[in-house]
């Protein structure tokens, strides 16, 4: 079996169909060229065809960076396969570039001997200068390491669109469909899925745009058929996935659906208070489309108001969530601490991005783990859970809600920019099988005819949730330390110690209510790779590749970061070496060293980019040898 980093077996016979078990394709162009759309459409066509896949969108934070420049380049990478792949791939096998800037910023990633499809008509003096080329790379030997195809995409597009009703500058907007059509042909796909999508998207309101795009799509496709220039085309057969119904989903959508599912499972309306921030805003966009589920979305004036309203809605009895990225969590931290003292259930979603400060808003990173654990004033422990993939964000959201409601606590849910925007096929769960997470409200007095807001359940140590509107349970919450049981203001030193210990114990005790960490170790390895969050796919693939080369390596992935699973200490002490790869400076590694006094090995990368499978494989190999 090939793997995520294998090279293409080049088929020497020109014009032949090359069988591939997996291919990585990257569309790159100016941020106004519609590369995200082309990539997403190719992804959907491949999903419908039955391939397994994983995607990696990569775009600038600027909505429209200066046209034709290097900062303005936007790309979309997708790996398609006939087997269960886990990542969008390390290196493209096929690179489509729409202008010189896209060539310059993506060429180094293209696999040697890989296929380069170039919109050569964009390689004029002006665009070459903007990209920093002294001379046209298409006209010298600088591309001789690759299989280059020059395609007149602009001419093809203009010709295809001329009778559509679209005129002027808008004509060339369809050139992403020309490129897409050619790539569909290259992989033996039909244009039907894409045509249906275009008709649905533009057909009613802008029929001329639908016509233009479909004509451009067909022009690109037909160019492939008629030109006979291509030495090879590819065939990637459908993957043999586990039987079931699949959809292609990105992490923000899956997480939003997870919150909706949690609200249904808890039989509570969902309140989502938020302030727009990259890369979390799509959570708001998605949730605001589903008001018929009883979802109340609130776009607040700032991050603080967003979490404040979320806390208020929790007090009033809603399943409450707020979503943001790192800078927003910083602003929300004071209110999260109030939630911890008030012991109200709410979910804080942190879609992490490269920081500090504004950092690189569209790039992924895992550098908020320490903030999630400790980034609050006072002694303020709270559960932390992390999604490991786009599809896993759905389950993680339900788990966060379960913990929040059962233990009456804020819960921090970590996602990141890669999970948020990357997509993968998701085998849909049977709704009937999802857990019931409903928790009853307090309905009457709990001590001698009176209501004591801080009386606790003996097992969970959660206090009762008594919501406004319930007669006889009027009570006051607040940020001043609470007397145990009564909830009255208390400055008593012994009580403060007791309440601090109780809040800590309540969260630590959750370890008894979460699954043990499962270790995948078929060979009795000495080395354990332990991950958390979005690195799942790359780590899993690297471990798989290493095993195929005969390396014994075990693998485990944490969803619960606070508290840790009960067996984690035992797992860690069962291996001679533990490798912790993270997209930060070693947060989990530090937590494990501090908690368990174990000499784990960190492997860190803070480039605003995901791990390449090969990087992890090399690290595993080095550790095994050392």
């Amino acid at each position: 079996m090939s793997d995520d980093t294998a090279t293409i077996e080049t088929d020497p016979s020109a014009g032949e169909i090359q069988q591939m078990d997996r291919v990585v394709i990257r569309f790159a162009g100016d941020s106004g060229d519609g590369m995200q759309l082309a990539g997403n459409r190719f992804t959907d066509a491949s999903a419908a065809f039955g391939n397994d896949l994983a995607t990696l969108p990569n775009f600038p934070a600027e909505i429209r960076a200066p046209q034709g420049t290097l900062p303005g380049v936007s790309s979309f990478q997708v790996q398609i396969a006939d087997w269960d792949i886990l990542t969008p791939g390390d290196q493209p096998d096929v690179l489509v570039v729409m202008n010189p800037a896209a060539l310059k910023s993506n060429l180094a990633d293209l696999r040697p001997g890989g296929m380069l499809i170039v919109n050569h008509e964009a390689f004029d003096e002006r665009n070459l200068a903007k990209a920093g080329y002294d001379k046209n790379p298409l006209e010298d030997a600088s591309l001789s390491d690759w299989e280059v195809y020059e395609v007149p995409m602009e001419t093809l597009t203009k010709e295809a669109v001329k009778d559509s009703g679209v005129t002027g500058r808008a004509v060339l907007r369809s050139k992403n469909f020309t490129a897409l059509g050619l790539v569909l042909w290259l992989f033996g796909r039909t244009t039907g899925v894409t045509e249906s999508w275009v008709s649905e998207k533009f057909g009613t309101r802008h029929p001329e745009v639908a016509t233009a795009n479909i004509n451009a799509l067909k022009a690109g496709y037909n160019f492939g058929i008629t030109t006979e220039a291509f030495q090879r085309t590819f065939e990637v057969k459908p993957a043999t996935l586990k039987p079931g119904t699949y959809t292609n989903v990105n992490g923000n959508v899956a997480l939003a659906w997870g919150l909706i599912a949690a609200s249904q499972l808890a039989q509570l309306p969902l309140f989502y208070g938020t302030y727009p921030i990259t890369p979390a805003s799509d959570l708001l966009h998605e949730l605001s489309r589903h008001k018929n589920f009883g979802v109340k979305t609130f776009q607040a004036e700032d991050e603080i108001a967003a979490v404040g309203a979320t806390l208020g809605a929790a007090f009033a009895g809603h399943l409450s969530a707020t979503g943001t990225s790192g800078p927003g969590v910083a602003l929300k931290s004071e209110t999260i601490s109030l939630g911890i003292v008030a012991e109200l259930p709410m979910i804080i979603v942190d879609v992490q991005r490269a920081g500090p400060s504004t950092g690189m808003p569209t790039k992924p990173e895992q550098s908020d783990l320490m903030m999630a654990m400790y980034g609050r004033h006072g002694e303020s422990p709270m559960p932390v859970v992390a999604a490991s993939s786009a599809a896993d964000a759905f389950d993680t959201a339900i788990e966060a809600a379960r913990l929040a409601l059962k233990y009456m606590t804020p819960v921090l849910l970590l996602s990141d920019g890669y999970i948020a925007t990357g997509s993968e096929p998701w085998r849909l769960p049977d709704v009937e099988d999802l857990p019931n997470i409903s928790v009853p409200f307090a309905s009457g007095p709990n001590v001698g005819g009176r209501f004591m807001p801080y009386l606790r359940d003996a097992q969970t140590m959660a206090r009762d949730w008594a919501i406004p509107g319930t007669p006889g349970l009027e009570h006051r919450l607040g940020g001043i330390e609470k007397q145990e049981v009564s909830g009255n203001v208390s400055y008593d030193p012994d009580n403060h110690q007791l309440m601090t210990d109780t809040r800590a114990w309540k969260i630590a005790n959750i370890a008894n209510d979460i699954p043990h960490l499962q270790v995948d170790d078929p060979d009795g390895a000495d080395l354990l790779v332990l991950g958390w969050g979005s690195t799942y796919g790359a780590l899993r693939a690297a471990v798989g590749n290493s095993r195929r080369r005969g390396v014994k390596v075990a693998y485990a992935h944490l969803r619960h970061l606070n508290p840790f699973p009960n067996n984690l200490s035992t797992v860690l002490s069962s291996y001679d070496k533990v490798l912790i790869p993270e997209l930060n400076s070693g947060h989990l590694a530090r937590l494990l060293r501090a908690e368990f006094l174990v000499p784990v090995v960190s492997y860190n990368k803070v480039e605003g980019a995901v791990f390449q499978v090969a990087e992890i494989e090399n690290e595993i190999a080095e550790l095994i040898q050392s």
Partner: protein
Amino acid sequence: MTSYTRADFQTDQEVRWCPGCGDYTILASVQTFMSEMGVRKENIVFVSGIGCAARFPYYMNTYGMHSIHGRAPAIATGVAVANPELSVWVVGGDGDMLSIGGNHLIHALRRNVNIKILLFNNQIYGLTKGQYSPTSEVGKLTKSSPMGSLDHPFNPMSLALGAEASFVARTLDMDRNHTIDILRKAHDHQGSALIEIYQNCNVFNDKAFIQLTGKQERLDNRIDLVHGEPVMFGVDNEWAVVMDGASAKIVATASVDPSAIVIHDETSADPSQAFALSRLAHGPDGPTPLGIFRRAERPAYDSAVSQQLAQAREARGPGDLATLLRSQGTWTVD
């Protein structure tokens, strides 16, 4: 409907404001009003921020939350949106509402969330022991401004009107009947209400409102705004307010044609005249308007949120999770 007395709204908590604080009077007025408001106490929620005034919820036998400095309007917004049936009240001081929480205040007002905001304005920071506040007068000598404060103060009425508030009023701690009358009208109003209550801090800023509370001074300086009535004041209404271009100004009643005197219209859709009246005094140092500046109808935000949900359900039916998960297209593997 159960009939309540003031005692029904008192808690077993000892009230811990300084002896002589204006907050005691306001608490009594609010408890008295609540006993007559016609809302069951389990349906009442008080949310406060931080400061002396923000202790208020502990003394109200309703649902309540003593929250974070400045954030009460945001938290109360969540409560009101989650359950529009509740009667939601916010209490905070001038530092809480106008300084650290200024942003939340103006946005709650523009949205017209159905929350009633009681702004206890004593023009000083009390809980932190006497620094100047965003309503302190320029030149104020305090611990943090030994050479006099350089900060130009807010005019809370002008600020609220500028923030699109639909209900804007000012009252005085000492005038309980006036306070209760405004509380009632705020309760009857759909949407947000900002009620500025001049509140004496007898420890750090005593007699700041003496021009409006002193026996003789108040006769000379209280401009009582009455809907539909000409704006006049003084022992014998010897002073009147007229418009001079876009500005309101005070003139001797005898010096103008009676038809030139401003007729107060709290319900006007255009807040310009209310704004002009708010500019008659930038602090309680002389003739100062009291009463309702504005009481205009506008849809309440929390009700509108619920309406959108109802519309969505009507148009698309109640949500079905299995359908949602399949809404982006699916394929089946056998």
